[in-house]
């Protein structure tokens, strides 16, 4: 069987169904590895992975670090606050430094959209995008796909509502590409000020009526609402947001009952999602976290293999 080659994982846009399926299939194997008494494998011994986090992120960083250790890679961490970044070192210098340190894989989280692409063009190491500004967060998209595949078995024809601040969400973009490629239908719901222009050209529908959206869907992915959106004048208040677009038990009942509920975390309970929904029967939010480690192990495994290591 023909294997898909990955040099980098910069986004889910343009990734084929075959490639996504291969990552998810491999992730299933790693899920099993995680259940073993010794939940690690030696496959990436001798591979050095650098985690470059230019933006604080506890969850994604821990998830990647755990994944790296569980495939036995050597791990080096660069945090923006703890390294030369605060002294104003440019991305280009950072890239050259990484190159000089003979790192094999770079996992990068950056506030600037396209920062992983910038690195990928300039270094030989493989680059994994761990979230770039409001562009993409491909491993989050993949773990959402894995979670859904586990819940429902088949992504084709699934109806998914993405609820919240689409404009500023890298998770939304990765989810849209991933879900569309796997044959799911996607509808977006949120305040008009947070729905980006011409987003329908990504092959999605938009509704401003949350009950309509909920009635239509099988799955709701709830996005985090950043407090600064209120300061920027994009929404009137957090209170109004909860009343108009918050996911509450009442709304779910109005829409005809239980849905699969997902959230990339960290949640603002009582703003975009109510606690009794987040902890309710349909919620798979904690399963997403476990799946995150397996998906990242799979991506590291698939990216590190192949031609690398041979002159």
């Amino acid at each position, binding site marked *: 069987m023909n294997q898909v080659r990955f040099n980098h994982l910069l986004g889910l846009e343009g990734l084929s169904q075959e490639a996504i399926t291969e990552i998810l299939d491999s992730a299933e194997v790693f899920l099993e590895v995680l259940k073993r008494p010794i939940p690690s494998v030696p496959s990436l011994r001798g591979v050095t992975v650098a985690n470059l986090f230019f933006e604080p992120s506890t969850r994604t960083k821990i998830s990647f670090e755990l994944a790296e250790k569980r495939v036995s890679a050597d791990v080096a961490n660069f945090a923006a606050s703890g390294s030369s970044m605060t002294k104003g070192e440019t991305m280009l210098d950072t890239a050259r430094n990484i190159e000089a340190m003979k790192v094999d894989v770079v996992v990068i989280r950056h506030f600037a959209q*396209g920062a992983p692409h910038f690195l990928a063009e300039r270094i030989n190491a493989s680059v994994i995008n761990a979230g770039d500004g409001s562009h993409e967060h491909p491993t989050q998209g993949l773990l959402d796909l894995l979670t859904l595949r586990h819940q429902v078995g088949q992504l084709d024809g699934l109806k998914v509502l993405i609820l919240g601040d689409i404009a500023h969400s890298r998770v939304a973009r990765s989810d849209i590409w991933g879900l569309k490629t796997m044959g799911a239908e996607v509808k977006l719901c949120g305040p008009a000020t947070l729905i980006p222009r011409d987003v329908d050209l990504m092959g999605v529908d938009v509704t401003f009526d949350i009950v309509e959206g909920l009635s239509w869907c099988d799955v709701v992915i709830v996005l985090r609402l950043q407090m600064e959106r209120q300061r920027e004048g994009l929404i009137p208040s957090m209170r109004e947001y909860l009343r108009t677009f918050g996911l509450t038990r009442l709304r779910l009942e109005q829409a005809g009952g239980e849905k699969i509920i997902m959230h990339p975390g960290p949640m603002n309970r009582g703003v975009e999602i109510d606690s009794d929904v987040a902890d309710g029967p349909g919620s798979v939010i904690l399963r997403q976290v476990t799946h995150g480690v397996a998906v990242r192990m799979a991506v590291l495994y698939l990216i590190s293999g192949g031609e690398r290591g041979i002159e």
Partner: protein
Amino acid sequence: MNETLSPIKPPSGWEYHSTEKLALRGGRLFDPSAELDEQTDLIIEKGVILSIGAIPDGWNGEVVDVSGCLVCPGFFDMHVHFREPGFEHKETIRTGCTAAAVGGFTGVAPMPNTNPAIDNPGMVRFQQEQALGLPVDLFPIAAITTGRKGATLTEIGELRDVGVKVFSDDGSPLVSSEMMRHALEYTRMFNLVISEHCEDMSLTKGGVMHEGSVATRLGLPGMPSIGEEIPVERNIQLAEFTGGRLHIAHISTAKSLDLIRRAKDRGINITAEVTPHHLTLDCSLLEGYNADYKVNPPLRTVEDVEALIEGLADGTIDAIATDHAPHAPDEKEVEFISAPFGMIGLETAVGVVHTRLVSTGKLSLSRMVAAFSTAPRAIMGLHEVNLKVGQAANITLFNPDEKWMVDREQMLSKAKNTPFHGWKLTGRTRGVVNRGMAWIRK
């Protein structure tokens, strides 16, 4: 100013000629303003066009063979950024003028967004002096308001006395409609021009590219078309109301074009320019996050590009200007959202426009030459340049058939931030004649 300063040597690969006694042999004399299109020789003596026609037997001056070339009135770029004083690591007037000459321009008008800003006669003279000894006329554009801060008018009358023709706060558009009204009223007394970068910063705040489907996919904050169109319309209204002379810089959208077309139909005295990049590039090119495509106004849609070409062809847009905006490589080679706006254009403008617009039949050769030469000078209110006997020789030589590839490493500008690197072009400038000297590529 001291015009007798000794001439500066051209860059390697170029030859310097005096115009004491110089003949250009075998070129195609092409001057739409003089309805001239003729294959013949042109003789210059003491910097002035002495005769047009075959070189007489026994003529004892220097002869340069320019067969295959168009011999045109000198090209003029009315919108460049030369960064001196203040940002000499990006470009100086000397390097900028050298790039201009190599790109075929005999005159340029640098914008005043230097540090300090060009807002008093002393600064204007300083800039003019830096260009001496080069075959390129420099007409500094002065700021409309002191320090380009939008608060008080500069001493426009005094600035006129040292040769300033155009005023602009380019890069910092006039927010206050009242200030724009006063600027148009005041410059009108002297027949001077306001060149305005039309941008409503409250709509474009934080934006880094054209707002639309590409920005949405890339997750980049957008600059909507209306961010340009609303101030274009406001400024047209103010020009009509005041009777002032408004020039709209670097228009980028189909709607802006439409507003200008209707204003001109109503008889309002406005003019407009467009850049070579807005005539040839669209926003889909930003997909790889290459900051060489990051420019303000941003690259728009294919539909906008097509409309602008049409507007240039039918004369709604008067002139082509490059908005040559040099930045040092380490400034541009950063994350896309942090990179400064701007691209250089002097050395590629003529080749790019000729290849993409004239060779493809979208623009006539005479429109191209007019938009590069007579039109910008007319907008600025400069003396006319043409190929008539008795006129000072101010000439651009252009070979429409020469094929070449753009190589940023070969550029004379200090900066290398061009989106046209690697482009294969048809049509290349061969030389310039101006200020008593000629630079001609070997």
